[in-house]
């Protein structure tokens, strides 16, 4: 990006040491992304409650601000003001680190997401592998939280979550691989450009998209696959013992992952920032919010599946589907 290289050379010519000048642009980018995540998560939590409410013919939050728009801010203030509880008997360090381990990779993924033709923190040529690797980190944080809590619900929730995440990682990555085959690149920016020059990949990858959507719902721990925090069985799963800001970070991570998923879905299958008329960033946000709405819509419609059904769907349903899809995509690419 021109702005950041100009900033860098400006700092160097102003006499800053090179290592410090090298440090500034990435930090500014990280801050912008963090701000983006925080703003959107604040809005998304409100949106989720509104969508949930209206789907049940309720209203959702109404009291704070017009239609309760600042409800989330009030909630955050409440969470910050809460006592920092570390229950007796927990594995202290692991317990404290788990939310951070959860949030850091969710945040780092935003580095490679293309918000526009030039609006990307770092256009990695292995972006898809990078995302797949980082999103798998969630398993570790869930296990850390579940194990360190020294609580049967937490441990059960974490065990379920890790079983689920590891199973669904496989079809997810395979369905993403077929998109990479089509575009001939692992860089998200290249995938978007390839789509804007030809067509949206949803047209040739409907099965791939279906697998991607289902596996993502499981990866996001969202209903109908919210086994890890199945309230009726497990209280709150791995974050049963968490409260206050630590819990809020888990919550934030969940919504950051939701944004990541929506960005991935629109980038891989729906042309990312490309689109007629409107500026690229606006197109991108429209698509992202459409997918976020879709996920919320599914969450408040479908009931939770059982744990054995979950494994069935993952291994006996999605995996063969995605493999067949990959094979056909390969043949298509060869014959093209």
């Amino acid at each position, binding site marked *: 990006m021109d702005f950041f290289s100009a900033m860098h050379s400006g700092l160097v010519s102003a006499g800053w040491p090179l290592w410090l000048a090298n440090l500034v642009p990435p930090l500014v980018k990280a801050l912008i992304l963090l701000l983006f995540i925080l703003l959107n998560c604040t809005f998304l939590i409100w949106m989720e409650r509104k969508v949930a409410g209206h789907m049940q013919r309720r*209203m959702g939050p109404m009291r704070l601000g017009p239609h309760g728009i600042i409800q989330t801010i009030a909630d955050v203030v409440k969470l910050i003001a809460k006592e920092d509880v570390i229950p007796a008997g927990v594995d202290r360090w692991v317990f404290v680190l788990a939310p951070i381990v959860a949030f850091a990779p969710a945040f780092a993924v935003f580095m490679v997401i293309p918000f526009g033709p030039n609006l990307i923190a770092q256009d990695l040529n292995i972006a898809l592998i990078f995302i797949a690797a980082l999103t798998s980190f969630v398993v570790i944080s869930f296990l850390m939280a579940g194990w360190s809590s020294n609580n049967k619900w937490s441990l059960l929730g974490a065990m379920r979550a890790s079983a689920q995440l590891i199973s669904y990682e496989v079809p997810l990555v395979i369905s993403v691989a077929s998109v990479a085959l089509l575009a001939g690149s692992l860089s998200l920016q290249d995938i978007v450009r390839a789509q804007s020059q030809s067509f949206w990949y949803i047209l040739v990858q409907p099965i791939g998209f279906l697998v991607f959507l289902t596996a993502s719902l499981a990866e996001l721990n969202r209903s109908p696959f919210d086994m890890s925090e199945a309230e009726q069985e497990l209280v709150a799963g791995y974050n049963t013992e968490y409260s206050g800001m630590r819990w809020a970070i888990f919550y934030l991570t969940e919504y950051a992952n939701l944004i990541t998923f929506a960005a991935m879905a629109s980038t891989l299958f729906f042309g990312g920032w490309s689109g007629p008329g409107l500026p690229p960033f606006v197109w991108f946000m429209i698509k992202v919010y459409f997918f976020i709405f879709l996920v919320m819509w599914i969450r408040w419609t479908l009931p939770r599946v059982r744990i054995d059904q979950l494994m069935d769907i993952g291994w006996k349903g999605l995996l063969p589907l995605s493999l067949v899809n990959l094979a056909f995509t390969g043949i298509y690419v060869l014959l093209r």
Partner: protein
Amino acid sequence: MGRFLAEIYKALKSAALGLKVTVKNLFSPAITLQYPDERLDLPVGFRGIPVLLSDAEGNLKCTSCELCARACPVQCIEIQSHREEGRKLKVLDVYNLDATWCMYCGLCVEACPFDALAMSDQFELADYDLTNLVFDRDRLAEIGRRQVTETINFGIKTGGAATR
């Protein structure tokens, strides 16, 4: 293979049906009432606390006949009155209704021969102090004047026809 595809089709179809239901409800108006700001239209025959009604001049219609106190199964009504020289009607001195005892049966209203008592539309009686829940003559009369719902055939006397 055929069964596998049929199951996928079934899953997609039922999911789509469910999604249709929720999106239909999403765009239907909410049925929530924002309670302190908006209030439910009380149904005919609603029985709030019994109140004393006044006539057009603002005088209580009560004649201190004590039929309501006698009719009350929990004896929560206390009436004291005296006669004055040259006046045919008794003068009502005390009319205490203990809302902590009252069970809102409406028998007092039914017993009243002068339509001087009515089941009101007041139901927000919560208080931190129990003694405030003993409603005296003046408070009952005041609530009776605030009465917005038509009370002429209010309470259990209602024949079922809408009063509004």
